[in-house]
């Protein structure tokens, strides 16, 4: 099979995979959901094609349809063809199709935590497709598995073969998934959001690996993603989907240079970017994607489109060829191509203007000094083996009134624990948290309750942080009742309506239950709940990371507007560096329970000092293929070590490109490198 690597003789001729006018329906109790309508795209041998869109647009469903793995009996392909290597996959028998899966087409899924079988050894799971598709002995299969593990960069492969998925980190599991997909030298790999669940540095490692393997082995790849940065960095051609249909189709460079569909325009503009000056607020696509049970007639995007014309709402726009290799399903695509998005009213007038300067109270609202939060973990049933996880280990910072401090770092760095300790949901082991001069770690009883009113929280997951058995009105009234703010029920209801309008919802939604709302709406309810007590300080724990790009921008704008209007102070915990840059005034970068660097936003992003900050920023893909091509791609090595056993000396030295002997011994102090710019590195 290695001949496939030696140039692609088939490239440029007939495509390897050709999806033609695919229609997928799901039968549900509420009616038929048309999940994919008329999707067509080609993948040539060795090419990387992206399928982009927000959740529910049909991108993953279409991939499962290609593999014929749709959930039966609800999901079904009602029309179309999937030509692969000269055969229509939809016409194969079940057994012929089984031979294609895993042998000719490999698949990588989103959730590395749940996509591997927890009760079978990794080695078994990697060799399984070999036994299914090839006549191979146990010895040869084991040798191949070892090769594969080394190929995907898993060290200590011999031992790893015997281990089970729970002994692997998320990144390592995704590497194992790639090894499984590669096992039988497939011609095509379909990767469904392969890095969405991973940290940005691990994402960079995995994507580099996939790109390198795809080049070297001549494997074509379909990459399904919502992340435009990933698309810009890796895709040759892009298909943008919206509400079950194709919106636009183009070569990656052309698409990013000049999008020819208003949805693509909006999508590109609503992502905060590291490479562009920060505007006063993010541009958004107003509204929500349509309900596919009852989609609007005409163009699906028309209700949210700033450039819509009366005709858009009556006629379904065909996917027309605008230029060579460029297709757009917009009636005004030609205008868009010649005049640009601004002429069609697709650009926010304020964009590009400098953000208004914030006037900040010099007095800090919150001062954290030497905070430590340690957890005792007992290994085994008896307390014989005690270990201490130093989740937060000596952190100091302050937040002034009206300011937003960003807290960033990979998962496991302790950023969420800091938030929880500030809220007194975890007890501090040492240090002080001063709120207007009072040490919060020591208050109790009525005083604590009073502080709880003034310090509120917005959680990450809008799906699990609202009680499904309470109406929105009850959810908003509960904190008021607990704190005795609105004893009168009618007044509480009026206040709930007021809060809902404040966060861009309608007062009548108080009667609804959370499941009747979309993800973005639920997060607005979460914000309204935090505002119910008129707090001064809000801990925002990854408030937008579970949301789609266009919704994410809406929520960020809302948080900023509320801050201005109500004079709020935020601690903004996030892993997305671009989002943090947009919303925060100052940023603290954390690694293994310690602050590595803390500085004003502009200083930090313009001239990051600490090697870890630099590596994090390098790992973020920028949604611009031309810029991406010029960037260096040396992803940070390795993974964050276990907090049970942190490295001696500088905790970062095991992954640091600059590390030397001294870093193994000395624990670097957080020093002022430049005025008001602090970093903890001995090399600076």
């Amino acid at each position, binding site marked *: 099979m290695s001949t496939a690597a030696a140039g692609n003789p088939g490239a440029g001729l007939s495509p390897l995979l050709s999806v033609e006018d695919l229609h997928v329906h799901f039968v549900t109790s509420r009616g038929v959901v048309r999940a994919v309508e008329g999707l067509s795209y080609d993948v040539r041998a060795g090419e990387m094609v992206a399928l982009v869109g927000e959740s529910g647009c049909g991108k993953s469903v279409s991939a499962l349809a290609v*593999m014929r*793995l749709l959930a039966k009996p609800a999901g079904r392909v009602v029309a179309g063809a999937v030509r692969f290597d000269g055969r229509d996959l939809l016409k194969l028998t*079940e057994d012929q199709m*089984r*031979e*294609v*899966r*895993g*042998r000719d087409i*490999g*698949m990588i*899924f989103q*959730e590395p935590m*749940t*996509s*591997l*079988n*927890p*009760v*079978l*050894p990794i080695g078994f799971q990697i060799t*399984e*497709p070999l036994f*299914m*598709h090839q006549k191979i002995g146990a010895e040869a299969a084991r040798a191949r598995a070892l090769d594969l593990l080394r190929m995907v960069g898993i060290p200590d492969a011999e031992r790893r073969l015997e281990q*089970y998925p*729970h002994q692997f980190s998320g990144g390592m599991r995704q590497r194992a*998934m790639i090894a*499984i997909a590669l096992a039988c030298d497939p011609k095509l790999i379909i990767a469904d959001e392969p890095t969405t669940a991973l940290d940005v540095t691990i994402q960079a490692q995995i994507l580099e690996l996939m790109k390198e393997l795809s080049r070297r082995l001549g494997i074509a790849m379909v990459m399904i993603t919502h992340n435009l940065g990933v698309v810009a960095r890796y895709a040759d051609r892009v298909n943008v989907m919206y509400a079950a249909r194709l919106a636009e189709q183009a070569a990656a460079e052309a698409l990013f240079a000049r999008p020819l569909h208003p949805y693509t325009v909006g999508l590109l503009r609503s992502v905060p970017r590291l490479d562009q000056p920060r505007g006063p607020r993010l541009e958004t696509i107003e509204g929500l994607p349509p309900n596919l049970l009852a989609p609007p007639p005409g163009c699906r995007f028309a209700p949210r489109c700033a450039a819509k014309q009366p005709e858009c709402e009556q006629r379904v726009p065909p996917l027309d060829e605008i230029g060579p290799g460029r297709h757009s399903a917009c009636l005004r695509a030609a205008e868009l191509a010649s005049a640009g998005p601004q002429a069609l009213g697709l650009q926010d007038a304020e964009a590009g203007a400098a953000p208004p300067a914030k006037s900040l109270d010099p007095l800090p609202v919150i001062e954290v000094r030497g905070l430590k939060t340690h957890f005792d973990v007992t*290994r*085994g*049933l*008896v307390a014989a083996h005690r270990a201490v996880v130093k989740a937060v280990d000596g952190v100091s910072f302050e937040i002034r009134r009206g300011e937003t401090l960003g807290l960033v770092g990979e998962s496991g760095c302790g950023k969420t624990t800091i938030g929880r300790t500030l809220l007194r949901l975890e007890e501090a082991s040492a240090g002080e948290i001063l709120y207007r001069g009072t040490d919060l770690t020591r208050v109790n009883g009525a005083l604590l309750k009073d502080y709880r009113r003034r310090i509120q929280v917005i959680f990450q997951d809008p799906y699990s942080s609202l009680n499904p058995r309470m109406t929105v009105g009850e959810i908003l009234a509960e904190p008021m009742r607990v704190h005795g703010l609105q004893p009168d029920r009618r007044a509480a209801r009026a206040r709930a309506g007021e809060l809902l309008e404040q966060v861009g919802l309608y007062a009548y939604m108080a009667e609804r239950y959370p499941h009747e709302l979309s993800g973005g709406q639920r997060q607005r309810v979460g914000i309204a709940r935090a505002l119910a007590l008129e707090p001064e300080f809000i801990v925002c724990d990854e408030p937008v990371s579970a949301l789609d790009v266009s919704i994410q921008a809406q929520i960020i704008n809302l948080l900023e507007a509320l801050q201005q209007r109500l004079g709020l102070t935020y601690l903004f915990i996030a892993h997305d560096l671009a989002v943090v840059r947009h919303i925060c005034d100052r940023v603290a970068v954390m690694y293994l329970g310690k602050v590595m660097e803390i500085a004003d936003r502009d200083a930090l992003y313009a001239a990051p000092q600490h090697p870890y900050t630099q590596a994090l920023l390098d790992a973020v893909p920028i949604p611009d293929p031309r810029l991406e091509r010029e960037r260096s791609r040396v992803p940070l090595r390795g993974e964050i070590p276990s907090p049970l056993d942190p490295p001696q000396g500088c905790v970062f030295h095991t992954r640091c490109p600059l590390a030397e002997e001294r870093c193994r011994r000395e624990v670097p102090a957080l020093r002022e490198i430049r005025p008001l710019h602090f970093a903890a590195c001995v090399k600076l």
Partner: protein
Amino acid sequence: MLRYILQRVALMIPTLIGVALLVFLMLRAMPGDITDVMFRGEGGGVPEELIVAERQRLGLDQPIWVQFGKWFWGLLQGNLGVSMWTGQPVAYEIAIRLELSLQVAVMATLLAVLLAIPLGTLSALYKDRWIDQAIRVFSIAGLAVPSFWLGMIIILLLLTLFAWHPPLTFTRFTTDPVANLSQLVWPALAVGYRYSAVATRMMRSTILEVLQEDYIRTARAKGVFERLVIVRHALRNALLPVVTVIGLEFAFVIGGLVVTEQVFNLNGIGKLFVEAVTRGDNTLVQGLVLLVATTFILINFAIDLMYAWLDPRIRYR
């Protein structure tokens, strides 16, 4: 692992002491004692001195804590005491019946496992199709029909159709397997049917749950044969809750077949239990309760070990 087993065994001891104390006190809280049953029923007429002498002989005249102390001291030496009614050691009374009860329990469990795993799996794979409906009728019927009633039907059918009834006395399997089985297969069938019904329902729902898991989709995407997807990837993950149900049911069958044993005229633990309670034979009841408690604890322990074997994420240290 060995360490873990030793710990678990050590933890059994306080539990069993608690059970011993509790059952002892509860029995003493009931009005009357064995002498009432022995001498005072059916017109009475037994001289009072005789009753007092008997109470003395059995030690029932002593303060309650002395009685407990003596019994407990015996327990520590592995002596369950002597049956107040028969005068035989409690351990002997239990031992001669335990073999029968154990055999019925094992056979019923085997039947349940052999029925439940394939039926539950089939039911899940053909969800809402006729196979599933048929299996559902079969298993819901098993839940609805009391096993003693099913036992009576079995005996009636054997009598009317074959003019044959199962042997009435227990023969050891090692002595005469045919005679042994022809007596015990029927109660095992009656009990095992209900037992399998519980496990089948459980199996069906866990398989349905597991089939939704991402790793099942991964297995299919690898081109694994559908049958192997079920057997290799789904079954083992689905077995965990089923193992719990089967284990607890097994412990119940050891001591809980009171009515079924009557129907089949089996001289088992269940029947002994009823006799001991009606006679007020407190030492025997205490011994039996301890037996059942120990069985439950051991079975729970076995379930935990089985979990660790089935699921590598669970490791006991």
